[in-house]
């Protein structure tokens, strides 16, 4: 075999190995496609927002039942349990797809990570409050939960219209 063929073979196997590693660790189908990762993040955020929105509707007394609210908070608890590295993989900042994530998110990763990590405990408290059934406590826990979302949105999200 000449050098060129060896090089191509080596490159292919390294690429294959990398693909397998990243593909498995992030658990996404289009692992190497940043635009798809942005889409997936947006779906995660939509799931979280939809969940929070259902609780909000319940608190406002605008047509959501207690059952809707507890389904919503369950979705939020589940989505917020994802690994932040999988939700915010490197190379998915603004400019990729219609990403709204500022590059500062990765420059300031420890804050981003702790912001993300604060969501699930708050959501679990909200879940407990919903089970308790005291509307005032639910409202309070809802405010605390949205605060955890806001911390990250304030620092790391650009405003889209």
């Amino acid at each position, binding site marked *: 075999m000449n050098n060129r063929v060896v090089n191509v073979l080596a490159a292919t196997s390294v690429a294959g190995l990398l693909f397998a590693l990243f593909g498995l660790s992030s658990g996404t189908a289009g692992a190497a496609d940043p635009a798809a990762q942005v889409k997936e993040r947006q779906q995660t955020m939509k799931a979280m927002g939809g969940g929070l929105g259902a609780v909000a509707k319940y608190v406002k007394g*605008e047509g959501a039942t207690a059952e809707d609210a507890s389904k919503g908070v369950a979705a939020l608890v589940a989505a917020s349990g994802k690994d932040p590295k999988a939700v915010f993989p490197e190379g998915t900042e603004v400019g990729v797809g219609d990403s709204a994530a500022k590059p500062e998110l990765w420059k300031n990763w420890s804050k981003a990570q702790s912001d993300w990590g604060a969501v699930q405990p708050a959501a679990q408290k909200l879940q407990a409050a919903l089970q308790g059934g005291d509307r005032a406590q639910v409202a309070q826990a809802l405010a605390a939960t949205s605060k955890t979302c*806001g911390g990250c949105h304030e620092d790391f999200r650009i405003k*889209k219209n």
Partner: protein
Amino acid sequence: MGRTLPVVVLALPLAFAGGAAADDGAPGGAVASMPATTAGSAAERGAYLFHAAGCQGCHTASEGGGEPLAGGRALKTPFGTFYTPNITPDPANGIGRWSDADFIRAFREGVRPDGTALYPAFPYASYTLMTDGDLLDLKAYLFAQTAAAAPNKPHDLSPPFSWRFLLPAWQWMYLTPGPRPDEPARPAAWNRGRYLVDALGHCGECHTPRNLLGAMEADRYLAGNPDGPDGDKVPNVTGATGKGIGGWSDGDLTLLLETGLTPEGDVVGGAMGEVVRNSTSKLTAEDRAAIAAYLKTVPAVE
């Protein structure tokens, strides 16, 4: 003092003449503040105004680890970058030497104690509507804070915006000094809401687009600003149904002001996230309801 006195003078004859029936709407012609509380010391009342007026955010360089209210935060605008000043009671670098009259004049007329004009990046086009009583309460609160010796940083503006001597002309064209009397035909909550939105909250400074000279465009009041702080788009908060808040319930509005949650379940970020955190979440529920009551009446501008 300045505030409570006229209210008492106006309210007393009403109370004697009409018994309890005099509380619908503000006393005729009185100024709008209808305070959340008249109890406590001036500094305690001032603390509430401080939150409602959102002073903390701009006057603290939190990203650079700046001391509270010591200024130095960069405000990037289409006219250049402003660096907010130190408003702690430090006598050399802050406002510690300002008299009551100096303080009122800065907010009412946009003029510094030495007589030079302030840039309207300090939103005196809105704060001019604050009552003297509220301004003095706010001053009492600020003067009770810890002094910081941080020196002020000069603004970084390009001509002609760097020519401070032009500012009086701007003020002559665009500044309508307040305060503004209540609209007696409207309920008290509406008048309070208008005061919170226009005077204290200075909502229009971001939500109303600006003309080429940086003045708020009155005919697009609260209709959104495509070029807001840090280049962000600021949404329309008139009653417009498309991009405005025409379809929002009172509960949608008050919940956003309290928690940052939008009806879709999103949580606001950027500058509004900061406003919710520093300001509207700290208001009383009555005041948030008043803001909603007022905003719902703002004419729709698409």
